[in-house]
């Protein structure tokens, strides 16, 4: 198989994501008062409603509706005042009623958008040909026109209508290309059911342009975010590694059944695996900031499926897509998509055909394998759930949600950049995690420029490294390190009282002992010597001993200076300021 970068020169990858997020920070389930279960014994948190007992009825969790409205507001969606819950039928025991309660053609949140900033090496995945006018055409033809139907959405579009609206809207190309996948009662009326909705302002979508540093910004449209309920967990017994194949029986635990779940569906606007990864990261930062979920890909509270198809550069006709599962980490999302793009390219280049199918990413073997082929459309027999009253959200309700919105990561990043004067990349990272951001703001209070940047460096490098080493349970909030301690360490660095190497050591000692950095530095005699007279004596000693290297420097070998600085550091037992040594050496040798 060819490399991704090569493949993307010839082929355009059209990628859409479906992202499920459990609202783990709620107290109770979507339609009943059972506590949300995290790591409990099987079937601890179940009641007549979430076990689907005869006669039980659902009542929606107000806070869950508030959360999805917040998610929509934070991703620039239009909040739909009128919507309904629908029943989506499929016989599988992980859904206690054999139908899932979800939303119909109109979701609480429709037609949103996030702008992705792509920079660094990841930006190279998008080839030069995918900018400017070519990209404008690509966007217009890959997205489902003004109505914005993607296949994944169409699956959730049951609102069949008596209104014979088929001719009211020309069928969008994307939907046509994927019409074989329409697991819906009928697609066309769905389009007509949406006809009244305001759709994307496509004209305002910026076409990505590459900047001098290779970075670019690309708008990714969000088709919808809808509210639904999670399924039960099943354990397959008797097969290999808990796989369903070969299992002799399966055990069902309904603790998770009924957990509030929001599903976000993007338009197929992503063009590289890196963009997909960045989108997921960005969304995760937003949801974390909103406080609606712990967003753990590892624990499955945030899950992502990818749809990908290829078309020749310049072509406006969409190819057949495959759906990718098991993309359970940012790396898996990137690598799985990259593999699948290369695989499809190879098949197509050999004259083969892509089949509409669901494929499973196997990270250990770095390949995707077929899970199931979709020969026929799934027929979920959607219809509006008569047990649930429709929603007509009031302005008051939506305003209340808006008022509760915290500062979002992009705005926070811009503020950090503007007010603290720190680097954009660091600002982005700090702003993306509410705990880190709060820690930074406290530690860097009143600072700007270099001082604030030093604080940022310590958090982004030292604190993050320290937490990573301690495993997933360690958090900024619980690690025991105070912002004041980091601020003090930053001051020591700014005063050149410690070197950055020493700062690392001080940080470790501080984290371990809880002592203040000044005290650590003083008690251990780590304070950096900045007295030029004392340092000059060290320089003289070193130059006397290393006459040969001194001569090499004078003969033009600049590299040897590093060796001499090292000798000075050793001579001073690490206490000298390396920058000053550098300076003094140059002077002495000139």
């Amino acid at each position, binding site marked *: 198989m060819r490399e991704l970068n090569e493949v993307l020169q010839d082929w355009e990858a059209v990628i859409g994501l479906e992202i499920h997020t459990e609202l783990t920070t709620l107290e109770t389930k979507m339609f009943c*008062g059972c506590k949300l279960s995290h790591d409990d014994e099987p079937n601890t948190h179940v009641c007549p409603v979430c076990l689907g007992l005869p006669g039980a009825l659902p009542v929606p969790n107000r806070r869950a509706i508030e959360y999805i409205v917040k998610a929509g507001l934070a991703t620039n969606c239009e909040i739909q005042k009128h919507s309904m819950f629908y029943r989506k039928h499929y016989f599988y025991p992980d859904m206690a009623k054999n139908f899932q309660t979800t939303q119909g053609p109109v979701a609480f949140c429709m037609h949103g958008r996030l702008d992705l900033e792509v920079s660094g090496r990841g930006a190279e995945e998008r080839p030069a040909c995918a900018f400017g006018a070519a990209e404008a055409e690509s966007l217009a033809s890959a997205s489902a026109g003004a109505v914005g139907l993607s296949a994944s959405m169409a699956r959730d579009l049951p609102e069949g209508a008596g209104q014979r609206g088929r001719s009211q809207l020309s069928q969008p190309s994307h939907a046509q290309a994927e019409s074989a996948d329409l697991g819906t009662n009928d697609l066309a009326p769905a389009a007509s059911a949406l006809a009244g909705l305001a759709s994307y302002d496509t004209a305002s979508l910026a076409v990505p342009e590459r900047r001098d540093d290779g970075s670019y910004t690309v708008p990714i449209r969000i088709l919808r975010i809808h509210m639904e309920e999670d399924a039960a967990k099943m354990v397959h017994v008797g097969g290999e590694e808990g796989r369903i194949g070969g299992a002799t029986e399966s055990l069902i635990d309904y603790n998770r059944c009924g957990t509030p779940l929001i599903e976000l569906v993007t338009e197929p606007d992503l063009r590289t695996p890196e963009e997909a990864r960045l989108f997921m990261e960005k969304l995760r930062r937003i949801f974390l900031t909103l406080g609606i979920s712990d967003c753990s890909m590892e624990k499955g509270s945030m899950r992502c499926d990818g749809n990908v198809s290829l078309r020749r550069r310049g072509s406006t006709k969409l190819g057949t897509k495959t759906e990718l599962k098991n993309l359970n980490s940012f790396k898996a999302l990137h690598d799985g998509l990259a593999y699948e793009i290369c695989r499809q390219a190879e098949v197509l280049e050999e004259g083969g055909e892509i089949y509409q199918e669901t494929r499973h990413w196997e990270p250990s073997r770095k390949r995707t394998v077929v899970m199931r082929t979709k020969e026929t459309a799934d027929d979920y027999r959607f219809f509006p759930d008569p047990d649930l009253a429709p929603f007509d959200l009031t302005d008051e309700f939506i305003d209340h949600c808006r008022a509760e919105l915290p500062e979002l990561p992009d705005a926070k990043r811009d503020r950090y950049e503007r007010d603290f004067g720190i680097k954009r990349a660091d600002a982005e990272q700090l702003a993306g995690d509410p705990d880190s951001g709060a820690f930074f703001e406290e530690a860097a209070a009143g600072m700007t420029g270099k001082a604030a940047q030093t604080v940022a460096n310590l958090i982004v490098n030292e604190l993050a490294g320290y937490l990573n080493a301690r495993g997933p349970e360690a958090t900024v909030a619980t690690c025991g390190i105070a912002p004041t301690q980091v601020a003090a360490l930053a001051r020591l660095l700014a005063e050149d009282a410690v070197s950055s190497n020493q700062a690392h050591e001080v940080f470790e000692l501080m984290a371990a002992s809880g002592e203040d950095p000044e005290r650590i530095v003083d008690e251990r005699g780590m304070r950096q010597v900045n007295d030029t007279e004392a340092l000059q004596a060290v320089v003289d000693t070193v130059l006397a001993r290393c006459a040969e290297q001194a001569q090499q420097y004078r003969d033009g070998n600049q590299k040897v200076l590093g060796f001499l600085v090292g000798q000075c550091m050793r001579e001073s037992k690490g206490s000298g300021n390396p920058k000053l040594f550098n300076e003094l050496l140059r002077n002495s040798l000139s």
Partner: protein
Amino acid sequence: MALSENDVRAIADYARIALEGEELAQMTSYMNDAVSMLEPVLAYDLPDVEPTFHPIGSLSNVMRGDAEDAERGFTIDEALGNAASSRDRSFRVPSILGEEE
């Protein structure tokens, strides 16, 4: 267009209702009778009439607070009490894919 026995078998497969012996023929005959009885409703598919999904007038936005309802929660014995097969604390089902060939 009348439903064939094949159509009816496909619906039965979907609805997880095994039709045995004469049942398929009887069901097919019933389905066709019933569907023809429903024909009059097609006349009401009028463009300027809104469908009514909920016969409850203006009722909307019915929600509950996000508070635990421990009273309705089941003990494990209550939860599994009506299940024909269970193992430890879980409901049990036989092999989902069956013997692989």
